[in-house]
């Protein structure tokens, strides 16, 4: 659905030239929720903005739904942009217009009017739970409601792609969850391809099928969210995942212990595998840190354990046999 080939963007300023995107290649399939994470300044916002050419790349090509966005004439680009919805961190609603007028806005830009627009707007407002707010102005709404209006507006022209530029970064955790549930639902029900830019790892964990990690204008790691999150290779990914996690204190590790990081995925997460193996091998274990959660709905558990008082290697071999991934901790 979306393909980026060698996309490069440099910004020139009095301070000199800065490379925001450095030869980025990316392929996003139709119907997937694709996350782009990175710290501020990594180039992720510039990246998403090349998809609808709000930023024009200095080099490289961008394709959306078979159309080369980077090669379009102005009128063709405007037509293409109507097929690509976008929502923003600060919503970017028109304060002078009512909620209904905001949602109708992209349709009016296409020159549509009358009952057709009214019907479409009513349908969108109902779908997003905004019907009662139709005549209010954005200033009268909460952040979450404003973002819902932003989403309704983005969907008005029935786009195949929705770009989300830090769409939940200005919202509180509860509202973030609410908006993510909504995006997930739109992805499933409408088959909408969603590209989501964020610095919040939780957002990616919650809704993204695949993820790309960016640093200094390059994609340093990408893959299925579960693979990248459970077995990160790049230091940036590791560092971002480690934030907010309690690292265990090395002084608590029992002397002579064999440390191992165990990853359980799917149904195995809830099985007493570790206990069974420990009993059969005759080894003790202490859990030093761990997390049981879900990535895009798939359960997983990741534990750092210290084996003591027995044949730790045998326990590791047995766990590996049973499909538990064991890595050095």
């Amino acid at each position, binding site marked *: 659905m979306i393909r980026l080939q060698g996309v490069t963007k440099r910004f020139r300023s009095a301070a000199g030239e800065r490379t925001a995107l450095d030869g980025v290649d990316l392929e996003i399939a139709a119907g997937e929720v694709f996350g782009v994470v990175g710290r501020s300044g990594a180039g992720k916002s510039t990246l998403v903005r090349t998809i609808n050419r709000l930023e024009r790349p200095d080099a490289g090509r961008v394709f959306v739904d078979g159309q080369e966005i980077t090669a379009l004439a102005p009128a063709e680009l405007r037509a*293409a*942009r109507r097929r690509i919805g976008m929502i923003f961190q*600060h919503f970017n609603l028109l304060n002078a217009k009512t909620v209904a007028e905001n949602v109708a806005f*992209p349709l*009016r*830009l296409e020159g549509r009017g009358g009952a057709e627009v009214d019907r479409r707007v009513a349908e969108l407002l109902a779908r997003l739970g905004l019907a009662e707010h139709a005549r209010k102005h954005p200033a009268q709404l909460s952040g979450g409601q404003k973002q819902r209006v932003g989403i309704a507006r983005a969907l008005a022209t029935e786009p195949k792609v929705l770009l989300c530029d830090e769409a939940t970064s200005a919202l509180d955790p509860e509202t973030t969850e609410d908006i993510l549930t909504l995006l997930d639902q739109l992805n499933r029900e409408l088959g909408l391809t969603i590209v989501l830019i964020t610095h919040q790892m939780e957002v990616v964990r919650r809704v993204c099928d695949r993820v790309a990690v960016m640093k200094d204008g390059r994609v340093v790691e990408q893959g299925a969210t579960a693979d990248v999150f459970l077995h990160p290779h790049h230091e940036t990914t590791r560092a971002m995942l480690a934030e907010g996690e309690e690292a265990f204190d090395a002084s608590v590790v029992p002397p002579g212990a064999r440390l191992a990081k165990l990853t359980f995925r799917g149904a195995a997460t809830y099985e007493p595998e570790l206990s069974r193996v420990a009993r059969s091998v005759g080894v003790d274990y202490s859990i030093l840190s761990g997390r049981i959660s879900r990535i895009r709905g798939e359960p997983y558990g990741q534990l750092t354990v210290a084996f003591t008082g027995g044949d730790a290697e045998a326990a590791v071999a047995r766990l590996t046999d049973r499909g538990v991934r064991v890595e050095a901790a």
Partner: protein
Amino acid sequence: MFDNVDWTEIGRATVDTLLMLGGSLALTVLFGVPLGVLLYLSGKGRLAANPVLNAVLSFVVNVLRSVPFIILLIVMLPVTVLLVGTSLGVAGAIPPLVVGAAPFYARLVETALREVDKGVVEAGQAMGGTTLQIVTRALLPEALPGILAGATVTAIALVSYTAMAGVVGAGGLGDLAIRFGYQRFQTDVMIVTVVLLLLLVQGLQMLGDRLVAAVSHR
């Protein structure tokens, strides 16, 4: 008390002042808004960034704004005759008033547009809007409170300009104040005209504030 005051004369002068003000304000807005939009759009990083156009417009606006109005009145005399056939009366006052006020108002419009969040322009672009659509359907409505507040400030400045225009035979309350109140030492005429001008300014400010409040949705 008001022995020297000819109320018919005062009435006629008040009507003249209102006509000068209304005519010049309408034309100032007519020229000032597009000029302000061009100043904004041609600015650095804006939708139709054009450094040359911006520099030229900026220069013209600054030159007109730096000429003291009393000088502009005199310099404009031949142009005024060319445009409206006379340099006297209400019609003769309007061209210099517009030339004096439009560049000032254009700057206020430009400032009001700059106050609009850049995200609004970005959203308009992302939705496939043309520059004209973004200006007329998003930017101007969003900037309307500022544009109206600017029109209020400009209208009040125009009131004092109309008074000055009395010097070159424009008529109106300012003319009365100068000819009778000042030159003939008729203090009562001076007081009446000044009070009327004061009421006019008060009224304009109140009206302007109400209009701004009515279109503000922040």
